[in-house]
C-alpha cells in the first residue's frame, strides 16, 4: 500500500525512524484533507447559512454538499439524518442528554458493554443517576468477545436503549453488530452504535444495519480533529429535544418563546466547524477512492503478522483473542510496566499508547497496570512491525536489568 502512504505528508516531514502505531487514537491526515481545509481559509472563508453574498452562499452550498457526501458514505436515507458534532463523544452526549428529557422513565434500563470507551459509558451513567435509571453492563469473555446469549438475557421489558461499540478501542474485537441490532430491535429498544474505531476500516451502511444511532469522529478516519457525526433515524431525531440552543438552530425567537429549526439544524447550535466539515468530506472522498476489500485484506494481513511476531516473543502476553479482530492489538510485557515500555519505544520513534485507554471498567478486569496498544492503518507496513518487535525486545532488556517486578499477566 505504498500509494496509500504517499498521500500523507507527515511521513516525509518527520525524520526516520517514525513508526506511527497510534491510529486508534487519531489517524494521520492525507494531503487532500489538508488542502480542503486550507482552501477554506485561503479562498472561501465566510460563515454558513446566514448571509446572501456569493462567498457565503457558495460555502453554505459546499457545507451541505459535505453533509450529503457523509449521508451517501454511510448509506443514510437523507441528509437530515446527519448531524455534525465535535466528535464521537459529543454525539453520544447529544443523544443521552436529549433522550433524558422525554424518553426514559424512572427505573428504565440502559445496556452498555464492558468493551465501551468512557465516552459510551459516562454520558449514560450521568443520565442514569439523574433520571433514576439502571445502567447494566454486558460482560466480555476471556477472548474479548461479547455474548449474544448474555445480551438476550440482559434485555428486559424495562430496557430502553442498548449502546455498543462496533470495534473495541482496546482489544480490537469486532462485535457482531448486525445480530446485536436485530436482537435489540426485536425487543423494541433503541440501539446506538459507536463506530469510532470502525468507520475508517469497515464499510458501514446504516439503512441495512437498522441501527437508530451511529456515531463517529473525523479524526479517526483521516479527517480533522473537532468534527464528528451523529447519524440518527429521521423519525427519532424529530422527536428529540435540542441538545444545545442558540444561533443557527432556531426558526423564530420572540421574547417569550423559540421555535426550533428543522433537522438537522436544530441540533447544530452556533457557528459550525466549517473547515472541519470540508475536511471530513475530503476524508470521505479519500477513503472511498480505495477499494474497501483491499484495505480490509491489507490490514488483516498486517495485523496477523503483528500477532504472529508478538506471539514468538516469550515475555509478551497478547490480550484477548476475539473471533474477529480489527487492526488493534494490545499486550503486556512480563515484569515491565506499560508506561515504561511506551516511553522507551517513543524514544526509538515508535508511537503507540499505554495505560487504560479510556476503558477503565475493562482494564480493571484485564490488567491492573494497563496495557500497551498497537493500532494499525494501511500506511503501516511489515518493515515497521519488524522494527517495532526488535525495539520491544530492546526496551524489555533495558527495563529488565532492574528487579522491579510487577504482576503483568493478564487475566484473559
Amino acid at each position, binding site marked *: 500500500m505504498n500509494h496509500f502512504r504517499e498521500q500523507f505528508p507527515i511521513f516525509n516531514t518527520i525524520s526516520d525512524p517514525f513508526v506511527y502505531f497510534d491510529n486508534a487514537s487519531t489517524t494521520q491526515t492525507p494531503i487532500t484533507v489538508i488542502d480542503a481545509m486550507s482552501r477554506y481559509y485561503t479562498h472561501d472563508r465566510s460563515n454558513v447559512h446566514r448571509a446572501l453574498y456569493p462567498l457565503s452562499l457558495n460555502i453554505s452550498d459546499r457545507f451541505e454538499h459535505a453533509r450529503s457526501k457523509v449521508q451517501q458514505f454511510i448509506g443514510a436515507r437523507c441528509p437530515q439524518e446527519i448531524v455534525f458534532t465535535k466528535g464521537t463523544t459529543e454525539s453520544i452526549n447529544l443523544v443521552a442528554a436529549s433522550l433524558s428529557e422525554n424518553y426514559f422513565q424512572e427505573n428504565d434500563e440502559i445496556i452498555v458493554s464492558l468493551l465501551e470507551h468512557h465516552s459510551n459509558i459516562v454520558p449514560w451513567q450521568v443520565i442514569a443517576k439523574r433520571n433514576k435509571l439502571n445502567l447494566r453492563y454486558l460482560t466480555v469473555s476471556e477472548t474479548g468477545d461479547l455474548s449474544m446469549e448474555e445480551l438476550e438475557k440482559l434485555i428486559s421489558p424495562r430496557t430502553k436503549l442498548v449502546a455498543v461499540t462496533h470495534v473495541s478501542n482496546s482489544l480490537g474485537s469486532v462485535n457482531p453488530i448486525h445480530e446485536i441490532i436485530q436482537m435489540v430491535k426485536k425487543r423494541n429498544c433503541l440501539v446506538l452504535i459507536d463506530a469510532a474505531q470502525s468507520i475508517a476500516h469497515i464499510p458501514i451502511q446504516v439503512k441495512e444495519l437498522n441501527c437508530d444511532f451511529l456515531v463517529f469522529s473525523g479524526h479517526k478516519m483521516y479527517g480533522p480533529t473537532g468534527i464528528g457525526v451523529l447519524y440518527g433515524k429521521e423519525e427519532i431525531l424529530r422527536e428529540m429535544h435540542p441538545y444545545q440552543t442558540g444561533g443557527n438552530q432556531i426558526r423564530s425567537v420572540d421574547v417569550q418563546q423559540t421555535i426550533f429549526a428543522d433537522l438537522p439544524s436544530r441540533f447544530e447550535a452556533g457557528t459550525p466547524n466549517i473547515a472541519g466539515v470540508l475536511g471530513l468530506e475530503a476524508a470521505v472522498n479519500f477513503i472511498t477512492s480505495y477499494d474497501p476489500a483491499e484495505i480490509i485484506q491489507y490490514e488483516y494481513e498486517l495485523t496477523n503478522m503483528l500477532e504472529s511476531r508478538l506471539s514468538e516473543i516469550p515475555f509478551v502476553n497478547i490480550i484477548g483473542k476475539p473471533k474477529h479482530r480489527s487492526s488493534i492489538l494490545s499486550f503486556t510485557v512480563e515484569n*515491565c*510496566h*506499560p*508506561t*515504561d515500555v*511506551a*516511553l*522507551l519505544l517513543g*524514544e526509538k520513534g515508535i508511537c503507540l499508547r*499505554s*495505560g*487504560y485507554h479510556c476503558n477503565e471498567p475493562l482494564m480493571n478486569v484485564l490488567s491492573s*497496570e*494497563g496495557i500497551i496498544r498497537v493500532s494499525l492503518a494501511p500506511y503501516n507496513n511489515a518493515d515497521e512491525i519488524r522494527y517495532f518487535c526488535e525495539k520491544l525486545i530492546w526496551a524489555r532488556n*533495558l*527495563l529488565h536489568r*532492574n528487579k*522491579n517486578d*510487577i504482576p503483568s499477566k493478564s487475566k484473559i
Partner: protein
Amino acid sequence: MTISEKQDLFVKNILAITSWEEKFEFIMDKADSVTDCPDDYRSAEYLVKECQSKLWMASVWKDHKLQLHFHSATLIVRGLLGVFYEIYNNHTATEIINTDFQFIEQSELSRLFSNRSIGISAVLNRIYIEAKKEQH
C-alpha cells in the same frame, strides 16, 4: 547541599550523558532513592494521577523539613520521582519556595517532567503547594 546546588548537580550530570538510552538508565537508577508510600497513603486522597499509571504522593513535615513518600509501579516515573526526592526531601518550606524549577528546562528533559499524562508535573506543583501551606 542546598536545593539549588542539588538542581545544578543533576543538570550537570544529565547533560554529561549524550545518548537517550543512557539518560533513561540514569533516571531509572534514581528509582531506588524513593521511599515507598506507607499503605495508609495509598488512597484516593494521595493519588496524584491515574491516567497512564497510578502515582501516589504523601508529604509530612518533620522538624519543619519535608519528608516525601511516593509510590509508582512505573520504573521511569519512579526514577523521575527519585530526582525530586533527592532534590527536595529534608528541606524547609522556605528553601523550597525560594528556588525555581529552571532545572527541568535546563536538564532538557522537560518533555518527561512536564508530561501531564504521567503526572510528574502535578507532583512538582503539589510539593510547591505543600510548602506554601507549611509556610503559612
